[in-house]
């Protein structure tokens, strides 16, 4: 087990105790406190997003409705469910919470390169979130375009689309600033001896993610500015009536939004690559392969945006090319899955909650990835486009992948972040509920989609009713699992046993400093002498 770094007694005080009061939080520049601030804000918005999803499912229990809401409300609810879950939860979740908290610790630094820029990003996040929520309660009908804001409908609908777009724009700003901060930090603040090939894998994935954020986000920003200007000043870039081109909107939108899928999943893959070696007591299998496949996913993933537009009417050649690149992305993704399985092979496995979440991630992500190949096939896509099959696919990837990786990270790093242990038995029960509920909720969607049920519809044909009900009951089990999981963690926050320095037996730097870490992390910056995950 890794050796604990020496501290004199006064220096080892937890960072929660170093500053006190409200102002020590809102004016803080400490990366750990910013991570906690992100955790609180992101989880509150996650609860909001889950509630919308839950209500949306519940509405479909009777047909033709209305059961609890009108069709117009339904349209707004699925739009805001998408906007909140994507832009406010899953894109920032893992990088902003665990990235902020653990990136400097894992590379042996006292903070990120630009601490003040870091807290500024959080305030931008809060501003963007407030605008998004305000669009819901402003008294004007909330946006009803779907989270994709496709032109020309988004240009013409009378709902409050401008506010939704503005919210995403502000969030994008926050995302870019965090990305620049992380890249600079990784380049400049590594501890002596922490060469690139000794970086923990989570840091590698954060680095790749940060580059995708830096490169892709401005394109989305500019696209949304153009749509806003179109609504406000009446310019005609996307409006066919004025000589504009709505297909161009789709291109510009997906140039960001497809790489954004990798912003969601890559840090999650990093979390899994951290957890598996620790709970298998083996060094990670194929370190370089995982690193290069992360970079490969970030690179090739930026060239596949067109697979969202196979039926938009662009050229057949473009379709073939985008389909080809889509299949290419499967290669680095599969390399990662093989490496994870290789890491577990012949390990002495401990079935603790973080490991269970990691296993669920691999299972759900594999289903999500393989159904992605079905959708990436040009001919099949024509039939499955805009059906429940797509909804099932991206929930398996984003929630089953990104979301479960976030939960895995939460259970893995909880003792370090808060200095308390949670009840493992209850956490395992919650995991079981989540896993069963998730599959019951989203697996029927593949069948429904295959049978022709279109997405975003308020009403449906009678033959889909049975599977819809299965899916709705699944959502109840999932929500029960979430309540159990968060309840267990919140209880542990106050009543949990004190966690030691290294409760899981991890080898990376964060497990060598006290739990919770003291301000500025290290008294003396450690010198790194070998790779991470060197288990004997």
């Amino acid at each position, binding site marked *: 087990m890794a050796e604990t770094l020496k501290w004199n007694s006064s220096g080892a005080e937890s960072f929660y105790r170093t500053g006190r009061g409200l102002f020590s939080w809102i004016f803080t520049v400490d990366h750990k406190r910013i991570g906690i601030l992100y955790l609180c804000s992101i989880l509150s918005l996650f609860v909001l997003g889950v509630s919308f999803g839950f209500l949306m499912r519940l509405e479909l229990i009777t047909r033709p409705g209305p059961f609890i809401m009108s069709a117009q409300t339904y349209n707004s609810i699925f739009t805001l469910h998408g906007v909140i879950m994507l832009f406010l939860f899953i894109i920032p979740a893992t990088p902003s919470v665990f990235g902020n908290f653990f990136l400097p610790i894992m590379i042996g630094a006292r*903070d990120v390169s630009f*601490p003040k820029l870091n807290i500024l990003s959080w305030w931008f996040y809060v501003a963007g979130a407030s605008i998004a929520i305000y669009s819901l309660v402003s008294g004007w009908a909330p946006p009803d375009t779907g989270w994709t804001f496709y032109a020309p409908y988004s240009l013409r609908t009378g709902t409050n689309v401008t506010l939704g777009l503005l919210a995403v724009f502000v969030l994008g700003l926050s995302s870019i600033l965090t990305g620049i901060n992380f*890249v600079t930090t990784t380049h400049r603040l590594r501890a002596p001896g922490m060469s690139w090939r000794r970086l923990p894998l989570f840091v590698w994935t954060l680095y790749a993610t940060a580059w995708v954020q*830096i490169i892709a986000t401005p394109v989305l920003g500019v696209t949304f500015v153009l749509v806003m200007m179109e609504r406000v000043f009446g310019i005609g870039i996307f409006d066919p009536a004025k000589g504009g081109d709505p297909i161009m909107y789709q291109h510009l939108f997906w140039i960001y939004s497809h790489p954004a899928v990798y912003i969601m999943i890559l840090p999650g893959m990093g979390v899994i690559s951290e957890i598996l070696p620790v709970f298998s007591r083996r060094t990670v299998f194929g370190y370089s392969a995982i690193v290069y496949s992360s970079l490969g996913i970030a690179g090739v993933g930026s060239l596949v945006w067109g697979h969202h537009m196979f039926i938009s009417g662009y050229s057949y050649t473009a379709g073939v090319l985008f389909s080809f690149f889509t299949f290419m992305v499967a290669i680095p993704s599969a390399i990662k899955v093989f490496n994870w399985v290789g890491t577990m092979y012949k390990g002495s496995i401990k079935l603790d909650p973080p490991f269970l979440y990691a296993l669920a991630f691999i299972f759900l992500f594999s289903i999500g990835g393989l159904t992605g190949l079905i959708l990436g096939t040009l001919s099949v896509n024509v039939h499955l486009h805009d059906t429940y099959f797509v909804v099932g696919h991206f929930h398996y990837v984003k929630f089953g992948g990104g979301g479960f990786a976030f939960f895995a990270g939460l259970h893995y790093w909880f003792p370090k972040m808060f200095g308390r242990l949670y009840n493992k038995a209850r956490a395992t029960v919650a995991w079981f509920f989540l896993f069963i509920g998730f599959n019951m909720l989203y697996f029927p969607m593949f069948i429904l989609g295959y049978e022709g049920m279109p997405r975003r519809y308020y009403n449906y044909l009678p033959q889909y009713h049975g599977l819809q009900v299965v899916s709705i009951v699944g959502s109840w089990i999932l929500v029960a699992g979430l309540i159990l999981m968060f309840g267990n963690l919140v209880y542990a926050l106050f009543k949990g046993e004190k966690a030691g320095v290294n409760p899981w037996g991890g080898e990376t730097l964060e497990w060598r400093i006290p739990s919770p870490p003291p301000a500025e992390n290290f008294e003396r910056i450690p010198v790194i002498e070998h790779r991470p995950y060197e288990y004997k």
Partner: protein
Amino acid sequence: MNQTVEHELKWHTSYWPFLLSFGILFLAPLSFIFYFVYNKPMLSILSLGVGAPLVLISIAGWVKEGLEDEHGYSQGHSIWAMPILIVSEGFLFIGLFAAYWGLRLSSQAWPPAGTPEKAYAMPIILTAILALSAFSSHRAEKSLDNPEHAGFVAWLVVTLIFAVGFMGLTAYEWSRLIGEGFTIKTNVYSSAFYTITGFHASHVLVGVGIFISILIPALSGKISYPFVKSACIYWHFVELVWLFVVSQVYFW
């Protein structure tokens, strides 16, 4: 890296990021929403009135704090971060130009109906001004290397004058075109024209802000070398983008 030496643990806080985020929120998104979405000009002006001083004060405070923290452990990181920011900004303009090229290459007739006869004098003058400012900002950087404090301030002022002049002439050009009936909603070309030149002008404006926040402390002798260096990198990026703007939007 000097962070291996033992140092006393400190607890930092700063209120400038908090104030700046609120300032920016009031200055840009809120005043925009109030005016254009909710049609409440008074609220919009109020929001500008709250936002502008907040932004100015917090930038001043932030710069002051940065200059005082001369031995901070992340000293000099801005020279690394600026190129990364520029990559990001570059993709912003790539997005805009991609849209412009897409529209242009797929349209039947270009320029579309309603576009006035192009005048070539103004873009040439603007290009000359930016080229001169490139030279003067480079001279400022060199005088800092030597180091000659007076020369640095003088060249910085010259650069600033060019930048402000550029903004003024762009405003004049816009008002002339609008006077001729070539407004942002005239046709696809006018939309692209004002969007692209507007985005570029906003970057010039940020450059002016950066130069001012270097100049004011420099008058009392406080200069951060990395800050000046990254400001000059940024300014060269603005010039580079202008070459695309002028060749694609004016002369093609």
